[in-house]
């Protein structure tokens, strides 16, 4: 197969894809870097020249920087914890033989097909509205004061909405992993005297380690950049401003492209730090 000829042919045929991807990645990256060293205010004079690291310093020293990093990590961590725990429970339940299995499985996947903007709006208006949301009725039914979700529990609300969106993904991946577990292993452990709980802990959970890793990695990548859910619910108020939201505000609301670009570079660095950490924890799980 790997003759000289076939290898050069392969290179030739892969070239368009590689070049396209490189351009796709490199152009925005280089432009971000370029603008991050400039004072660039499109509505207030445009390009005002090079400023060195001033944008970087300003971005970090701004009072909203560290809270936004913190919020980002809380939201990502919270959603990961909820989706993985509930995902395992749901996957275990869906694995049981039951009536109407096919339909139930489709229903479980459904939230994944709802656009983030739509689902966040539905949650905000139908469930979490303090006057006529379903939760408000529920609270009133029990005689409690309805929660002002968006202001009193903004981060929790966002975590809830995003978890709802990502739970199907986690469930699906974990379900396929559970289904690939050799039934004889479970039977053997049953004969070895393991109770249902111990079978879960010693047999099923280790078997799921790899799938959990995959869910963790993929979700983190997407969760670091959630935006629509914040934009349509709190609009970044009440401590729900993530790093990506902060960058958006700097660029579009303050019309400061240089400052936003510096933030973008920080976001890239943060994402890479998280990725390296995850790879470390997870790498052990993936290779064996």
């Amino acid at each position, binding site marked *: 197969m790997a003759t000289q000829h076939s290898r050069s042919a392969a290179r030739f045929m892969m070239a368009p894809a590689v070049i396209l991807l490189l351009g796709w990645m490199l152009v925005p990256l280089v432009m971000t870097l370029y603008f991050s060293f400039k004072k660039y205010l499109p509505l207030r004079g445009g390009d005002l020249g090079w400023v060195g690291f001033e944008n970087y310093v300003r971005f970090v020293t701004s009072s909203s920087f560290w809270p936004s990093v913190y919020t980002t990590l809380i939201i990502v961590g919270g959603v990961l914890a909820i989706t993985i725990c509930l995902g395992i429970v749901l996957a275990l339940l869906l694995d049981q033989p039951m009536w109407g299995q096919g339909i139930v499985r489709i229903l479980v996947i459904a939230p994944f097909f709802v656009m983030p903007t739509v689902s966040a709006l539905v949650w905000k208006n139908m469930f979490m509205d303090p006057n006529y949301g379903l939760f408000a009725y529920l609270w009133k039914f029990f005689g409690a004061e309805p929660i002002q979700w968006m202001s009193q529990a903004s981060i929790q609300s966002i975590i809830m909405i995003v978890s709802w969106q990502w739970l199907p993904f986690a469930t699906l991946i974990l379900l396929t992993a559970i289904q690939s577990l*050799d039934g*004889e*292993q479970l*039977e*053997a*452990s*049953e*004969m*070895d*005297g*393991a109770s249902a709980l*111990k079978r879960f802990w*010693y*047999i099923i959970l*280790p*078997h799921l*380690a790899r799938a959990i890793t995959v869910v963790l990695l993929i979700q983190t990548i997407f969760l670091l950049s959630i935006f629509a859910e914040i934009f349509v619910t709190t609009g970044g108020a009440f401590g729900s401003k993530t790093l990506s939201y902060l960058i958006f505000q700097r660029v579009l609301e303050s019309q400061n492209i240089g400052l936003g670009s510096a933030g973008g570079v920080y976001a890239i660095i943060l994402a890479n730090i998280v990725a390296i950490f995850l790879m470390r924890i997870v790498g052990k799980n993936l290779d*064996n």
Partner: protein
Amino acid sequence: MGRIVLDKVVKRFGDVEVIPPLDLTIEEGEFTVFVGPSGCGKSTLLRLIAGLEDVSDGAIQIDGQDATALPPAQRRLAMVFQSYALYPHMSVRKNIAFPLKMAGLPKEEQDRRVAAAAAALNLNDYLDRRPGQLSGGQRQRVAIGRAIVREPSAFLFDEPLSNLDAALRVGMRLEISELHKRLNTTMVYVTHDQVEAMTMADKIVVLHAGVIEQVGSPLELYHEPRNLFVAGFIGSPKMNFMTGTEATSRGAHTIGVRPEHITASFDSGAWKGRVGVSEHLGSDTFLHVLDTGLAESITVRVDGEFSARHGDTVWLTPIEDKIHRFDEKGDRK
């Protein structure tokens, strides 16, 4: 310890009755082998005893105690699966110790028993490896190790050697027999390899479509098969069956002669035929003799020196008192 009694046990999957009412007693310390063609219900029967399947009807007693509704863990039985079912993420040591850990034994006792099992099964060098890093034979030994540390009242084996190559199979066969002699614990062993059945068993149970055709010692089954099915199933190569005048003249509907109970000669004999394929094993040769007018082909065992070529004419003579007679229903007369 280790007497298992099946009393009118029935197993149905939906509407399909896989095992019609079946009675069987497995005595203490006995090595019992279930044999039968594929799909006859051997594994199902074993899983019923293990408690991995519920009986549809009837009762199972273990050591005089009704075990029909007991969960698998409380039956004090250990099972070795065909796929070994080792826990892939645990080291060999942890695999073997798993049942002890589940039973809540103290750590020192666990270590002691694991060490003893590892020594008995030659696993000392592999204790810290994962199952994925072992050969088939080693995995098999780990599975057996995991079974013996619990000191169960009986062992259940479901075709444990079928994934091994021929040489290893012979070795493991001896090891399991050796283990049985040493532990003197009841063993129930499922196989469709009749060499395994004949060499290892104290008692063979021949199953056919969920029904027990015959229970007996290997030699009983060989010398006095109760019906055509057992006669054809036990013995390799298969017994030759003939109907027609040869049978009626001996007062039977069907007669059967084993290949080793027929002599062949180039000069004279009872039946004349033409040599088809001959299979040379070195010590013996199996001749497939055609055109005898008695059966499509008659298999004969001759000495390895007997030099018959394809197409040669041979004369066959059965040893008269080794002929098995069966009636119309296929039962032994």
